[in-house]
C-alpha cells in the first residue's frame, strides 16, 4: 500500500506547515482573540501529528489539556479584561535588535542539536510501545511519590485561587 504511505506523509507535511502558519499567526496578528484561536489551532495540529505517530493517548491528553483547558483559560482572560482586547493593540517592538540576537542564539542551538542526534532514535522510541496500561502502572508504581507531590501542589494552587478570589469581595457569600 505504498500510495497510502505517501498520502499520509504528505498529510503530515501539510499539517506541519499549517502548525507553522498558525504559530506565526499567534505572534503577528493584531486582534488578541484571533491570536488565541491560532494558538488553539496550532495545538490541535500537534495533536494530529501525535496521532500520525500512533501516540493516540498523548494526542487525547494534548487536546484535553491544551485545547480544552489552556486556551479556554486564555480566552477567559481576554473576555474578562475587555478593554485590553477591544482595541487591537499595536506591536511595539522597539527592542528588535535584542530580540534578533536572542533568536539567532536559539537557531544555532537547535541546528547543533538536530545534527548531533542519531536519527534512527524515532525507530527505537517506536519499539518501546508506550501503552496506557504501562503508563498507569509507572505512575502508581515507580513514580508514585512525585505523583503525590504534584497533587499536593495542585491542591495548594486551588486553595490559593479561592483565597485570592475571596479577598476581592469578602461579603460575597461563597
Amino acid at each position, binding site marked *: *500500500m*505504498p*500510495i*497510502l504511505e505517501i498520502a499520509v506523509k504528505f498529510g503530515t507535511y501539510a499539517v506541519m506547515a499549517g502548525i507553522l502558519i498558525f504559530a506565526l499567526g499567534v505572534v503577528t496578528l493584531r*486582534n488578541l*482573540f*484571533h491570536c488565541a*484561536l491560532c494558538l*488553539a489551532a496550532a495545538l*490541535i495540529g500537534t495533536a494530529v501529528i501525535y496521532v500520525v505517530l500512533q501516540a*493516540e*493517548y498523548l494526542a*487525547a*491528553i494534548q*487536546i*484535553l489539556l491544551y*485545547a*480544552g*483547558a489552556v*486556551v*479556554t483559560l486564555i*480566552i*477567559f482572560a481576554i*473576555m474578562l479584561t475587555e478593554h485590553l482586547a477591544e482595541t487591537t493593540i499595536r506591536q511595539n517592538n522597539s527592542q528588535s535588535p535584542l530580540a534578533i540576537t536572542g533568536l539567532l542564539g536559539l537557531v544555532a542551538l537547535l541546528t547543533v542539536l538536530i545534527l548531533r542526534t542519531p536519527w534512527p532514535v524515532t525507530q527505537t522510541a517506536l519499539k518501546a510501545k508506550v*501503552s*496506557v496500561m504501562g503508563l498507569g502502572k509507572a505512575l502508581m508504581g515507580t513514580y508514585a511519590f512525585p505523583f503525590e507531590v504534584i497533587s499536593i501542589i495542585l491542591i495548594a494552587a486551588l486553595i490559593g485561587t479561592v483565597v485570592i478570589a475571596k479577598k476581592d469581595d469578602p461579603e460575597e457569600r461563597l
Partner: protein
Amino acid sequence: MIRAIEFYVDMIFVTAKAWILDLLSRFLPDWMVVLASITISGVVILCMGPIIMMYLTLLERKLIGRIQNRYGPNRVGKWGLLQPIADGIKMFTKEDIVPANADKIVHLLAPIVIVVPALMVFLVVPFGERMTAVNLNIGLLYFIAISSVTVLPIFMGSWASRNKYSLLGGMRTAAQMISYEIPMTLAVVPAIMMSQSLSTNTIVLAQAGDYDLHWFIFTPWGIVGFIVFFLCATAECNRPPFDLPEAESELVAGFHTEYSGMKFALFYMAEYMNTFTLCGIAATLFLGGWQGPFFPSWLWFFGKTFVLICVMIWFRGTFPRFRVDHLMGFAWKFLLPLTLVNILLTALWQFTSNLAAWFWSILVLGISLWTLVKLNRTFVPEKRHYPLES
C-alpha cells in the same frame, strides 16, 4: 434456528459492509479497498448524524406537546414526519444576517467548528456488536477530550457577534461547561476501573453476563455514577434545567443570538448531536451498550439511547432553570464530592463480597449524601408558614 436468525439480523450491517468491500475488492487495488471501508463508515456517520438530529427535534416537539396536553407538529406529513425537512428548508432559505461590526471570519467559523467535534465523537460510540466505527483503545479518553473542545466554538460565536447578550451567554457557557466536565470525567472513572480498559467496546463486553444482571447500573456505585453522568451530560449539551447559555427569558438566545439561517441550524444540529452521543455513551457505560437478551444488538443500543433522550426531553418539559451561581455550586459543591466518594466505593467494591458490599456502600452513600445536603444549605427549600388573617 432462532439463534441463527438472531445472529444474522444482529450482524446485518457488518455483513452488508463486508459484502460491499469484497464486491469492490474484485476490481479495485487493495489499498483502494481500505480507503473504501473508511469512507463507507465515514459516510454512514456523516449522514446518520444529521438525520438523527432532524428526527430528534421532531421527537422533542412531539413529546413536549404531549406533556402539555397538545399535539406536536402534525401539519407537515402524516404525523408531522416531514416537519424536520420543512425546518431544514426553512433554515436554508432564511436570510443569513451578519451583524455590522461583528468580525466576519470568526462569526463564520464558529458554527463550523462546533459541528466538527459533535460529529467526531460518533467515532467512538459502539452502535452494535462489532459496529464501533474505530475501535480506539483510548475510546473514552478520546470522547472526553473532544467534548472538552466544544467550549471554544461557543466562545467564538459569542465573542464574534459583538452583542452584550451573547457575550454574557458566552461567559456563562464557559463557566458551566468547565465546571460540569470534571464531575462527568470523574463519574466515568468507576466504569473504567471495573472494566479495566478505556475502550468503549471492552467496557460493553465487561457488562455482558447471563440475563444481563451485570450492567454497571445494577451496582450502588453504578447508580450514583449514572445519575451524576446523566446530569453532567444534560449540562454539557446545554439542555434544561441547565440551559443557562441560551436562556430565552434573560439572554434572548445566549451565544447564538446573532445567528440566523444555516449558521443557526448548525449550532442547533451540534446541540442535538451532542445530546445523542452523550446519551449513547451513558447507555454504553452504565446500561450495557448493546447487551440485550433477544433483539439484535444495534436495536438495543438505539432503544436505550432513545429512552435516555426521552428522559432529557422530560426534564425539559418539567424543570425551571438553574441560576448561574446555583449551577456552579451544584457542580463543585455537590456533584464533585459525590463522584469522589463514588470512586472510593468502587475501589472497595472489588474486595468485599456481594451482600456486605451492598450494605456498606449504601450506608456510605447515604451518609455522604446527607452531609452534602446539610453542607449546601442553599439547595434545601425552607419551610414557610402562611398565616391566614381575616
